[in-house]
């Protein structure tokens, strides 16, 4: 079965709303059957082996830690802390929104979880202080894209499966690009909110700087555990995830006493189901990878790119455009598991560092997370804000421009991604 036919079958299955994990498995088995190399026990064994990985244990743990922190009410503490710091200036709450997104990104690895958690806190606050719902919604999901870019990142744990890259190196590589995106968003806020009146919440004012800081410090320590532990070589990523989980449970249950046993059961159950839906994509993608390897498709893709151009910048533009389109239609996890094994050999051939390539692929796909028709975050914020996808999409237009500028800088200035992993000795 030709690759074109395989991709067509995949597109048709996705179009009729077949869950993507199964759609990928169906096309992989169909391709293997048509090549007469399919074997049911081996297929089952490959799916099992695809899931049975020490590195992947970080996935449920990061998901759980993020969910426990959200259920433990840490968002309000973070928001209050940032509000005390920057709420005073013009457009203050917009800055609070993106900076809280950045701090949340240091605790949670999922843009969708951050959108849901932060959106439900920030949107009512922003509306009350005179911001339009559409602007607040667009801003929240634009800031949330840094969640998988700033460590910890569920997407980076997934990215390490087909590429065997160091998750620690990727974690460090994501920090500066994430901060760059936030900085550019803040520049845009300065422009967009230039006529916005300065409004302060008296409730926050009364609590005072010291109280808000003391309340937030235990939460702010968490990212230090992950980045510090992994950077110093103290923990593996999976161990860092386990320690983060234990710390999150300590904060929610013992320190803040903000999560009841019933809530914890719900959080554990939701985390397990989220894990399962992602892991199933991982498992069926391992069937797809089997097909790719047998048909030597990554080599063919590399040769095709080399035939098209010998210029790395032209290659990068092609990758950028391709992934922007892919990001609009395919969810991030399957997009990475399907396309990265195909694109990475070509990127290496063009002399692009695989860690830098990982960051630009993830940033690229994150832009797609906010675009219809398959923009998961767009649906989440639409249901929280009660605004239609169409009106939020219009409000998002200037934010797309900001994110495209960030993507161009991150793509063409590799040192932004590579400096931290280099000085930490992860890569040369």
């Amino acid at each position: 079965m030709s690759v074109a036919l395989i991709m067509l079958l995949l597109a048709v299955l996705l179009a009729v709303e077949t869950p993507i994990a199964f759609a990928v498995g169906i096309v992989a088995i169909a391709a293997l059957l048509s090549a007469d190399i399919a074997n049911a026990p081996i297929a089952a064994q490959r799916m099992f082996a695809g899931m049975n990985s020490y590195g992947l244990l970080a996935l449920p743990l990061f998901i759980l830690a993020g969910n426990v922190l959200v259920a433990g009410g840490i968002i309000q503490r973070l928001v209050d802390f940032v509000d005390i710091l920057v709420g005073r200036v013009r457009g203050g709450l917009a800055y609070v929104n993106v900076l809280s997104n950045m701090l949340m990104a240091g605790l949670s690895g999922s843009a969708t979880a951050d959108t849901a958690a932060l959106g439900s806190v920030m949107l009512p606050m922003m509306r009350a202080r005179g911001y339009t719902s559409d602007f607040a919604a667009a801003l929240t999901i634009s800031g949330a894209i840094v969640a998988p870019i700033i460590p910890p990142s569920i997407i980076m744990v997934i990215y390490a499966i087909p590429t065997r890259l160091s998750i620690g190196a990727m974690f460090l590589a994501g920090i500066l690009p994430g901060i760059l995106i936030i900085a550019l968003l803040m520049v845009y806020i300065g422009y967009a909110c230039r006529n916005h009146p300065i409004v302060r919440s008296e409730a926050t004012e009364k609590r005072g700087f010291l109280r808000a800081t003391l309340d937030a410090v235990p939460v702010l320590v968490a990212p230090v555990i992950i980045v510090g532990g992994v950077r110093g070589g103290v923990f593996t990523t999976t161990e860092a995830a386990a320690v983060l989980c234990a710390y999150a449970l300590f904060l929610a249950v013992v320190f803040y006493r903000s999560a009841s046993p019933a809530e914890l059961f719900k959080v554990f159950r939701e985390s397990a189901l989220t894990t399962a839906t992602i892991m199933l994509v991982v498992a069926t993608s391992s069937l797809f990878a089997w097909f790719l390897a047998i048909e030597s498709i990554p080599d063919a893709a590399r040769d095709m790119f080399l035939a098209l151009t010998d210029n790395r910048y032209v290659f990068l533009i092609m990758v950028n455009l391709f992934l922007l389109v892919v990001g609009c239609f395919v969810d991030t996890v399957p997009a990475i598991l399907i396309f990265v094994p195909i694109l990475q050999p070509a990127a290496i051939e063009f002399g692009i560092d695989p860690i830098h390539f990982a960051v630009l692929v993830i940033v690229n796909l994150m832009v797609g997370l906010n675009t219809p028709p398959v923009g998961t975050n767009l649906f989440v914020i639409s249901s929280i804000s009660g605004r239609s996808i169409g009106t939020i999409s219009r409000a998002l237009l200037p934010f797309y421009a900001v994110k495209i500028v960030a993507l161009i800088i991150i793509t063409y200035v590799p040192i932004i991604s590579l400096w931290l992993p280099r000085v930490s000795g992860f890569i040369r």
Partner: protein
Amino acid sequence: MSAFRVFNRAIDVALVLALAVITVVLVVQVCMRYVFHAALPWPEELSQFLLVGISFFGMYRAITEDLHIRIDYLPKRPLTLRLLRAAGLVLVAGLLAYVGYGGLLLAISAWDHPSTALRIPMAIPYFIIPISCALSLAALVGAIRTILEAPASGSDTP
């Protein structure tokens, strides 16, 4: 509460316990490694098997609750579109039957293969595959039936 609900609730409890055990044993392992300098041989393998269990049994629960990641933009009522969606799920059933059958053969052949650390027969973790696939097939039949039954008017998403 129907037997079906009780069963699903039991699966949920098992999923929660599995995730809790993963968290606890890995934290214990970190303590053993860095505090007592005596890492245990089994926590990683146990956690990985539990993760496989969460993934496969979670697959079943995610079918019953329609949580699997998919594009969701088609109108819900036109018959042709419902037939197409159902056809997609029939193919999913084919995939699960294939993988479940493969998993059954794999498990049967692995009674004598002990796992590396826990030394349990590999058949035990491998049996997760056929059992969860059989459950998922049953859940898919329900999902296909729900799609084919005409939805009540007004349930269409704009």
